[in-house]
């Protein structure tokens, strides 16, 4: 049938096809631009586990991280995420980039999800883009995230540009350049909010581990059976206490979401994170990406009729149950690392420790895939909790295997950090009437 005449319809912006400058878009779409710039606002009002707070330190909140990430860049600085306007600033100032030990330089691969200039750079530089250090790139780059990360600058239609995403989906048999609009409302986010590794056989090219599927177990299998062999990627780093080859998980929002109740009902990331809001007499999509719990009237109440406070309390009660398990898994992994260390001190050989190390790697992976995910279980609670139960069991198994290898039975005691963690949580932004609101902060990176 004929399109009703009044909808957005075909647009021709007159912009260059590779335009990345957000100011050029601002003139044409002032409402979306204004909304985008609100990403600078910081607050945690209404949300217990998320929100947007300047450099809220994970290392401080979860004391066991120091042991879990020992020997790895994430033990230098690791913060809660904040708005899209801060991507470049946070990259440029984080100790994971500025303060690597022994004068090591962080690779360009890190830029990949931080600026709209990247796809163009990859086109120009090829794989050299990935191996060039971040600090080199930073000098030459003038744009952070912009409209062109998700929109075709000429038609403003949604589209994906991230090579890693396009390739990974192609390996799964899906051509995402042909995706429907509904799919794209999720895929544009899946360009970045996903687990990744840097492929050593291709100068550190950003690669997504989805060949065998999206579940934590399937991605682990991919790492063990494909990445480790074909792509010579045995590990992210070697754990200094246990000597195990470890994997680091990063923001697997998209993967976690698969198979969830909302996903099977066709709900997209944009439905919750970019709800329509009224600007005058018209609806536009919010371009302020943050915790939907801060704006439940827009994000949830069209679909859900229950009282929003009831729904929020339910969500938080699910998150509380997840959080309890997460910390148990974290502390169990700490015991595992220390137990293997103890076994080594007691004279266990590498051969004795094969099993314990395998278990430790797998245990911490299962913990991290949840710890690194940003919804504290909301996006897919059943899968998340199942994963954490595996993390706990595997960590305990690693500990028992270490005891056997080291021939000791006085296993290091687990530390319960829960009082400290809960105490800190309740002073930073929660309960909601105490939620913290902060002024916008510096976004520059030069």
């Amino acid at each position: 049938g004929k399109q009703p005449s009044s909808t957005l319809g075909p647009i021709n912006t007159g912009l260059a096809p590779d335009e990345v400058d957000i100011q050029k878009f601002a003139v044409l779409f002032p409402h979306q631009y204004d909304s985008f710039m609100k990403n600078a606002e910081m607050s945690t009002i209404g949300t217990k586990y998320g929100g947007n707070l300047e450099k809220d330190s994970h290392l401080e909140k979860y004391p066991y991280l120091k042991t879990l990430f020992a020997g790895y860049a994430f033990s230098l600085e690791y913060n809660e995420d904040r708005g899209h306007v801060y991507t470049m600033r946070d990259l440029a100032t984080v100790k994971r980039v500025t303060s690597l030990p022994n004068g090591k330089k962080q690779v360009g691969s890190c830029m990949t999800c931080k600026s709209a200039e990247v796809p163009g750079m990859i086109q120009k530089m090829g794989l050299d883009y990935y191996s060039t250090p971040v600090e080199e790139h930073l000098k030459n780059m003038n744009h952070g995230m912009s409209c062109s990360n998700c929109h075709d600058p000429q038609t403003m239609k949604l589209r994906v540009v991230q090579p890693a995403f396009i390739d990974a989906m192609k390996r799964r048999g899906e051509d995402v350049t042909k995706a429907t609009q509904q799919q794209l409302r999720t895929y544009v986010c899946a360009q970045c909010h996903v687990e990744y590794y840097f492929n050593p056989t291709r100068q550190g090219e950003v690669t997504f581990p989805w060949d065998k599927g999206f579940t934590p177990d399937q991605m682990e299998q991919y790492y063990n059976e494909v990445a480790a062999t074909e792509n010579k990627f045995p590990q992210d780093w070697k754990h200094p206490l246990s000597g195990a080859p470890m994997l680091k998980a990063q923001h697997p929002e998209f993967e976690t979401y698969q198979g969830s109740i909302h996903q099977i009902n066709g709900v997209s990331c944009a439905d919750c994170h970019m709800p329509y809001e009224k600007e005058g007499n018209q609806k536009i999509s919010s371009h302020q990406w943050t915790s939907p719990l801060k704006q439940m009237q827009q994000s949830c109440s069209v679909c859900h009729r229950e009282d929003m406070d009831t729904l929020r309390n339910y969500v938080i009660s699910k998150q509380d149950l997840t959080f309890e398990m997460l910390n148990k898994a974290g502390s169990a992994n700490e015991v595992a690392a220390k137990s293997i260390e103890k076994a080594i001190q007691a004279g266990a050989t590498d051969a004795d420790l094969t099993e314990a190390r395998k278990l430790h790697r797998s245990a911490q992976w299962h913990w991290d895939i949840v710890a690194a995910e940003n919804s504290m279980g909301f996006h897919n609670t059943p899968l998340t909790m199942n994963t954490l139960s595996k993390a706990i069991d595997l960590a305990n198994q690693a500990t028992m295997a270490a005891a056997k290898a080291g021939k000791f039975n006085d296993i290091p005691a687990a530390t319960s950090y829960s009082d400290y963690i809960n105490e800190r949580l309740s002073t930073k932004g929660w309960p909601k009437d105490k939620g913290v609101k902060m002024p916008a902060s510096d976004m520059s990176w030069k």
Partner: protein
Amino acid sequence: MELSKKIKVGILSVVILLAAAGAATATMHAVTHESSFCASCHVMQNYMASWEHSSHREVAGCNDCHTDQRNYLAKTYSKATAGARHAFMNVIKPPEHLKMIESSKEVVQRNCLRCHDSLVEKTRLADQDAEADRKFCFDCHRSTPHGRERPTPP
């Protein structure tokens, strides 16, 4: 349903078909215009009841959403085919829970836009016509106008 009502409906369905096919189209439209006509069927009463409590009661009746309003021909066709099917199903065995068939969804969606087009004109909500997984207005507005729960009619 009592027998007398069954007979009424049976006759009605025949009338609808004949009227649409023949010369009495105008009469058919007059009869079927009111929302109360829809509610003359047992299985329609829930929908009537929920609509009566909705903000649309004063502004949109059943036909405003559920019949093709693009032109007289389309309207007649959609009323006649749907009307005949409903009447037929109603006599055979009315199902306990109704769900819109795909072609009805298209009709309703177009009608949402008919009234609310200016509100959504800055969005891409109407861009997905041909796509199999398209999102309809009522995928989000899940309670407009019938509420969420659809108990079987008494």
